[in-house]
């Protein structure tokens, strides 16, 4: 059984694609680092008592004045860069993954139903999708953030930041899933195995989720990876614009925004270390997405 998996075409292609292997390793490394941040990181960047201003602005170890306690240096508050990045990635991935999951569930359900039933329901879903498309991702996210500021009292908004951000990102991504699921369902719906199930009188939900869904997973999986990357980028962008997460619980985007203040001074690492880390994360997710696309659609190679 395991041998069969190892020998299957997908795994074979993976074994023979250095780019995919490296990307997967980087992604797993970052994911692991983010997941186990509280145990790996030497200090907790959210805990003011765990760092001290005395250690502020230390460069990485290989530079003059580098401190071996802080291999990649510290920021102006004296926070260890590695710890800050691990915790930042934890937050970025948490938001990105939850937004992606919400968008998948919402988009796939609507898309499946629209493709399966067609007609008026389909028209309504697609018109809503049109409206959503006219309001690009970043705009939707900003808007929802703006609405939350208007509705919620300022005290609770700080606590709900992560939730608002996640919902905002999810709402701006669901259209991708809905459109892809709908288009694929249209194709599958006319295939004979689906007609066979319909003739037998199987329940529509069973036809959609047991019969059709497994057959359209390929393109959806590709979108899931690509949209995970978009979600992480979107979160970083929003935080960079200063309307995402605040400085006391920094995500990767917030770290970069803080680092921007040091663009013109000598403390390059405060900006470039988190930037490189973010880019490495997104690049590796995108490489995996590309790899999946090639594997599921080998004709495009």
């Amino acid at each position: 059984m395991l041998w069969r998996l190892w020998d299957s075409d997908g795994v074979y292609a993976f074994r023979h694609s250095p780019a995919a292997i490296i990307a997967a390793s980087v992604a797993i490394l970052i994911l692991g680092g983010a997941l186990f941040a509280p145990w790996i990181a030497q200090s907790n960047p959210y805990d003011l008592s765990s760092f001290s201003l005395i250690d502020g602005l230390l460069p990485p170890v290989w530079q003059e004045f580098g401190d071996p306690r802080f291999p990649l240096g510290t920021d102006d508050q004296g926070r260890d860069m590695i710890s800050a990045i691990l915790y930042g990635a934890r937050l970025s991935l948490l938001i990105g993954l939850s937004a992606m999951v919400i968008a998948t569930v919402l988009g796939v359900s609507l898309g499946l139903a629209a493709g399966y039933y067609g007609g008026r329901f389909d028209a309504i879903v697609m018109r809503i999708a049109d409206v959503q498309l006219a309001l690009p991702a970043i705009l939707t996210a900003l808007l929802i953030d703006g609405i939350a500021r208007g509705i919620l009292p300022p005290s609770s908004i700080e606590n709900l930041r992560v939730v608002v951000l996640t919902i905002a990102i999810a709402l701006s991504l669901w259209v991708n899933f809905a459109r892809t699921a709908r288009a694929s369902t249209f194709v599958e719906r006319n295939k004979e195995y689906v007609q066979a199930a319909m003739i037998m009188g199987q329940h529509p939900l069973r036809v959609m989720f047991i019969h059709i869904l497994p057959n359209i997973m390929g393109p959806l999986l590709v979108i899931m990876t690509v949209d995970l990357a978009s979600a992480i980028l979107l979160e970083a962008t929003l935080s960079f614009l200063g309307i995402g997460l605040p400085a006391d619980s920094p995500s990767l985007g917030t770290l970069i925004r803080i680092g921007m203040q040091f663009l013109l001074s000598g403390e390059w690492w405060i900006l470039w270390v988190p930037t490189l880390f973010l880019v490495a994360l997104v690049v590796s997710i995108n490489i995996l997405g590309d790899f999946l696309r090639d594997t599921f659609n080998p004709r495009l190679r």
Partner: protein
Amino acid sequence: MVYFILKRLIQSVFVMLAVALIAFSLFRFVGDPVSQMTGVETSVEDRERLREDLGLNDPFALQFYRFSSDMLRGDFGFSYRTRQPVSEMIATRLPATLELGIVSLIISLLVGIPAGVFTALRPRGFATQAILLTTLVGVSIPTFVIGIVLIFLFGVQLGWLPTFGRGGTTDLGGWTTSFLTVDGWRSLILPALTLGVYQLTLTMRLVRAEMLEVMRSDYIRFATARGIPYRKLHFKHALSNTMIPVITIIGLQFGGVIAFSIVTESVFQWPGMGLLFLESIRFVDIPVMGVYLVVIAFFFVLVNLLVDMLYILIDPRLRVKEAS
């Protein structure tokens, strides 16, 4: 054909109405307009009178109708923050954003389409692999990071180009343009590149994918079997068929260009609508937010209508009736 255009028009009107509804609900339900317009010292009676004057006690549908017809007449209301008419604020910011968006779109098409064609025609070459890897990194770098890198390289390290503002602009009867001065162009380069890079990578990858698909089609195989010269085969037969799906997506991408201009404008302090929108979010300036939304959706819908017209020009199947 007429029906096709009409159908698209109706769909566009629907989208605009829906966006207007969102904008109106924003205005109406997020915060109380009356308390935003009045100070602490205003009496309860005055507030009620204002409420009545503004028609806030009327039925929802009537209010929405009034809101929409005001919008159609170009009356966008007043900003909570500056007390200026929103239409004026938008009008002064619009040229900056449109010029930035158009230049970056042109950059992305001028580079993206040829690069896409090249990588599709030589799928296995070394250059192709290099370009593909570069674009993969390109889509993975957030726009603001690209901006920072460009500022760092060309502004800070080399000192060649200005890194914020529009520089010298010329006023053409209310439309301020960067296109007529050297300084304006110099200021435009970095923001336009920043905005263009992401679109460029998307365009290139899309053209490549569609072109590969078309190159496998039966009619290309048949044309190859007839010995049609490769140049014609690639640039006449294949490219024109590739463009049909590509222009659709480029139309959709226009929304992306405008959206990402928010980021670019923030990085480069570019005095466009995006910066205005950011400021209005920070101050919960609902009328400006709503109008920005409507304006963006309007451009998006307009561009996509133009794309549909372009469709009819390119594709005879939409133009000429099918014969039995």
